[in-house]
């Protein structure tokens, strides 16, 4: 009986049912899309902000120049406690050298580094590390170096030497000379424009510093510094220290890296680190507030459209009452209707919302999004809840109505 009533009630007034269904679907879709993105957005934004460059600098611990770090320690960076937060790192070996191209001679800095090197670490996933990963703002004309005797010249160095892409130059240091083919010229607006960047191995050979590096730039995902993070770790109690170490503050990640690099000192680059923290915090709270706003709005939109559709049916309720239906039966019929519509709306809405989240994530961040599993039951349950909330008020009013008055019109 109940099923027959419900079936007829759907089939006889498809338009009204469709409208309610549509609005529930939309509501569930917005809820799903927002909840799906909100969680991911902070992570995506954090990754996005990493393109500002390295936020940790590892140097030899000795204050005076002359100390070196060991290249052999580098793979250990991918094995530290915070290894998943470290998005990239690049080693450098610098020294002053004589450059000559044709008749022109200049003193400048030669830097040995990794451009994009496949790093194999035992028991860990292999990854690609180097400048291309941590400094996406480099504007390179020409190509990135592939062979060991190819190099990238800084724009102003290249201008002063009068070399262009494809030409060769000689680098001499400590009585040794190495020829490099310039395969690219880099413009950054910074100190990089004065240097020659060549593969690390070749520069180590040239400078007779095999296996040594002078600096490492590390790019790490961190959480914003708060009051606790700013405390001096040396003055912390054991528990506090534990908590500090297990929070991804830029200082604790730096400490982490420092521990694996022998004879090193890691310091946060505050220009990058502090701005990043502040920005992330703000973006997160905007997303949170917008999510709340959107959820509230879609909930009201859905429940009002339910209210409107219920209200028009008071004659029907009156009729049922007059032919002897008790309250319970009427409530079952109407709530049952609402539940069926909201179940269908919730499922369709979830699917649509999932696609929306995917679309937004793809067009903004160029990456896919893995929507969490708990979203599916949440979408359906919230559709139920909203549908019920929208039906209760008009239903109660309808139940109080005198059948005679309503039926008379």
């Amino acid at each position: 009986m109940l099923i027959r009533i419900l079936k007829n009630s759907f089939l006889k007034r498809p338009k009204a049912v469709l409208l309610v269904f549509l609005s529930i679907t939309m509501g569930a879709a917005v809820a799903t899309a927002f909840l799906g993105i909100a969680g991911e957005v902070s992570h995506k934004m954090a990754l996005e902000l990493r393109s500002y460059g390295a936020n940790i600098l590892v140097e030899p611990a000795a204050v005076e120049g002359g100390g070196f770090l060991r290249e052999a320690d580098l793979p250990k960076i991918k094995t530290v406690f915070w290894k998943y937060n470290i998005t990239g790192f690049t080693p450098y070996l610098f020294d002053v050298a004589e450059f000559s191209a044709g008749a022109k001679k200049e003193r400048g800095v030669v830097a040995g580094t990794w451009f994009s090197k496949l790093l194999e670490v035992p028991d860990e996933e292999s990854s690609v590390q180097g400048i291309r990963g941590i400094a996406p703002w480099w504007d390179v004309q020409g190509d990135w170096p592939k062979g060991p005797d190819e190099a990238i010249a800084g724009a102003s160095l290249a201008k002063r030497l009068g070399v262009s892409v494809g030409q060769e130059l000689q680098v001499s240091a400590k009585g040794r000379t190495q020829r490099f083919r310039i395969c690219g010229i880099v413009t950054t607006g910074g100190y990089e424009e004065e240097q020659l960047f060549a593969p690390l191995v070749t520069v180590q050979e040239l400078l007779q510093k095999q296996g040594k590096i002078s600096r490492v730039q590390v790019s790490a995902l961190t959480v914003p510094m708060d009051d606790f993070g700013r405390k001096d770790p040396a003055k912390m109690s054991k528990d506090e220290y534990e908590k500090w170490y297990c929070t991804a503050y830029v200082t604790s990640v730096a400490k982490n890296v420092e521990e694996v690099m022998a004879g090193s000192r890691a310091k946060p680059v505050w220009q990058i680190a502090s701005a990043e923290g502040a920005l992330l915090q703000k973006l997160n709270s905007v997303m949170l507030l917008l999510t709340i706003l959107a959820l509230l709005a879609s909930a009201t939109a859905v429940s009002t459209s339910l209210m409107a559709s219920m209200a028009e049916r008071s004659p029907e309720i009156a009729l049922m009452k007059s032919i002897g239906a008790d309250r319970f039966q009427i409530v079952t019929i109407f709530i049952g209707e609402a539940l069926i519509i909201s179940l269908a709306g919730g499922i369709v809405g979830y699917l649509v919302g999932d696609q929306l989240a995917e679309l937004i994530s793809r067009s903004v961040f160029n990456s896919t999004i893995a929507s969490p599993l708990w979203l599916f039951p949440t979408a359906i349950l919230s559709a139920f809840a909203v549908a019920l909330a929208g039906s209760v008020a008009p239903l109660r009013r309808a139940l109080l109505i005198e059948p005679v008055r309503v039926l008379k019109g």
Partner: protein
Amino acid sequence: MRALGHRAGRTLLLLAVLAMASSLATALGIVSVSMGKRVAEEVRKYGANLVMVPESSRLDVGSGGLNFGIVSEPAYLQQSRVEEALAKSGVKIDRSVHLRGALQLKDADVMVEGVNFAEVRRLFPWWQVNGAWPAAGEAVIGNDLAAQLKLKVGDTLELAGAAQTLRLKISGTVATGGEEDGLLFLEVSELQRALGLEGQLSLVRLMVTAGGESLKRSAERLQSLYPAAKVKEVRQIARTSEGLLAKVKLLMLLVTAVVLVSAGSSVAGTMSTTVLERGKEIGLMKAMGGTRWEVMLIFCGEAALLGVLGGLAGYLFGSLTAQFITRTVFSASAEIIPWFVFVSLGVSLFLALLGSLGPMTSVFKLDPVKSLRGE
């Protein structure tokens, strides 16, 4: 009007949803507009996006603590010419002036930098100063340099320059993780006197607020106003900031679109439901000799009235919401944008009319006799 008054409950419901939809449009719109500005401001914390150096000098600025202090023939910028160029350019610019030099401490050279501390505090909020910011006759010293020279806050040191000897008290140490860690900072005018370089600067860092015109154009304009200088874009900061801003704006736009479309269709649906149920009324009007046009006008008039009221309420409510969001997040008030009244009115009217017109056409097809009989 009567029609609206008669069905007060229904009218209120419709008004509420229309107001909700248009306030959502207003709030999201205002937030995304001011988001752009606020994030641009936040991004400023990453530092200067242009640098101005003398044409002949080598550029050895940067972040990441990679500085080699390449000693080349010193070249200087004229402070007065810089001021003039900045004033003429008409670009909204914040700047900080720098003069690099070496002073003698006992027998060793110490790299010092003359700055204006008020500018530094504004442009480089990431400086972590331990101790106090310096007053006249005081200096702050980079962390690493302090360790190297075994100096601490409160010490006084005597520095000899080409023209004059300075006695400076160290008021604090600074840590940035960059090249600043190895420098001593003092007031630029004091350093100019000590070095005998009155009115000369070695570097000006500029912070151009991303406006209508691109950073590159601003750089070119400044360059043409002061040909002896070289104006460069700090790509690390400038490009990344531009990219980030574009992403944030796109995100806000998409989010706004999604919410508006869904809430809008829901609202239009509600409108339709209420019109659909009034088939009887339309039938009656027709039976009494009302033409299609007249009926349509009555209904549209009703919808338009609702739309206008809803739009106005929505604008007010939406502005408040936007204000609340920007205040809590950016602790700054969002500007009141008057032309958003039209956006909010537009949204509300559009939804109201869309919601009533669609079903109305189908209702018109009904035979008045049938609809009155309730079939």
